């Protein structure tokens, strides 16, 4: 059976009205979850490495729990569990009609934090102990020592891994189909349904995700050789 592919319906108008805004949303979702997840993840990593028992506990449970549940389920549960009042309070620019899109941002931030925290934990541990000693010895507090001495080096050491995780995150955002959020993949699907050409559109979608992910990976590789700290 020959596969009859026909891409003639793909005019620039169709692309503009279905694939641009949705692409922007997917990128926004990735960016916010990456930044928010790294910030939250760093906090969790610090908790996990702290000498305070109950902080360690909370962080460990958080990470272990989120890493043991399939992402699709986390997306569903967050969507169902975040109360409506929360949306109207915070969602602002998203509005009541965009609950899934907003829920996805929250979900991914908290979910990715679990993964970023493990990366940051490794990063913090990669900074020699003598560096903290040096920070404390010149009179820094714990917070100053972390902010000015340890974390900048941890970020730099881990940047390639953080970005690689972000590429994975970008691909994972397509899972928001579970709650019907209008992301890039949804855009492709819409066009496919509209012209009854799902095969073509899924192929096209795969190509789209590949190009973005692959370019990001190449960028990471180039960065890797440039940002290393000279020791």
């Amino acid at each position, binding site marked *: 059976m020959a596969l009859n592919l026909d891409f003639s319906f793909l005019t620039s108008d169709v692309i503009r009205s279905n694939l641009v805004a949705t692409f922007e949303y997917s990128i926004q979702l990735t960016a916010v979850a990456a930044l928010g997840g790294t910030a939250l993840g760093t906090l969790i990593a610090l908790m996990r490495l702290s000498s305070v028992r109950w902080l360690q506990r909370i962080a460990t449970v958080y990470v272990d729990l989120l890493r043991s549940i399939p992402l699709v389920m986390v997306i569903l549960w967050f969507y169902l569990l975040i109360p409506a009042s929360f949306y109207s309070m915070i969602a602002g620019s998203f509005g009541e009609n965009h609950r899934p899109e907003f829920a996805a941002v929250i979900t991914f931030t908290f979910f990715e934090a679990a993964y970023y925290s493990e990366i940051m934990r490794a990063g913090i541990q990669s900074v020699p102990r*003598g560096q903290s000693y040096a920070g404390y010895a010149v*009179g*820094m507090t714990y917070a100053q020592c972390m902010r*000015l*001495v340890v974390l*900048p*080096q941890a970020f*730099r050491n881990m940047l390639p891994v953080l970005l690689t995780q972000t590429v994975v995150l970008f691909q994972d955002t397509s899972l928001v189909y579970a709650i019907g959020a209008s992301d890039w993949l949804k855009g492709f699907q819409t066009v496919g349904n509209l012209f009854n050409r799902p095969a073509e559109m899924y192929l096209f979608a795969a190509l789209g995700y590949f190009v973005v992910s692959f370019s990001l990976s190449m960028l990471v590789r180039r960065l890797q050789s440039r940002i290393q*700290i000279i020791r």
Partner: protein
Amino acid sequence: MIEIKNVSKWYGNFQVLTDCTTRINKGDVVVVCGPSGSGKSTLIKTVNALEPIQQGDIVVDGVSISDKKTNLPKLRSRVGMVFQHFELFPHLSITDNLTLAQIKVLGRGKDEAIKRGMKMLDRVGLSAQKDKFPGQLSGGQQQRVAIARALSMDPIVMLFDEPTSALDPEMVGEVLDVMVGLAQEGMTMMCVTHEMGFAKRVSNKVIFMDAGKIVEDCSKDDFFGNPDARSPRAKEFLSKILQH
């Protein structure tokens, strides 16, 4: 200026320091020596509370480090420390290394911090390197910058933890020269070192440690000049180290 009173410290069940007592007066240059694993580095790190102690007390310039009310960061900011592995901040330029703590800890203005930092950098003879990063300097240069970083904070005492042990032999001299200069200017110094030449030249007191205990605590002249009065362990150490 520094009083170490009956200090004991354990790592788990292992006792690293046993009942250590000594004092360092203003202007003293004290050399702490002894075989490796004898607790010298641990002892010097307890002075500014980088390593906690479980028993005894240390009083630095009238401030007790084991008093819960003591502001340890503030105390440490007045005690300069130089490490075996330099521990310059590798992500910052030499200038930033010299000014960071002055600005963030002492609250100095940027101009003042740079002025002070450059003066100290000049003192260790490395003004030309101010825009480089630590990784671009040799070990000896890095250690001199580390000394300048500590001096920029205007410390009341300087602690040196084996400052030349990680250096190539030909770079030891340049670091010792800076330390000798400091000693001659009257800086109060506590140095963990194997450099017996340095000890003979500028120290006025030698502490010899073995197995976590202070075995000898005497003047330099007694330590080197009167070996018969020394403990067997110190005699053995001296005979090995002074043979060559």
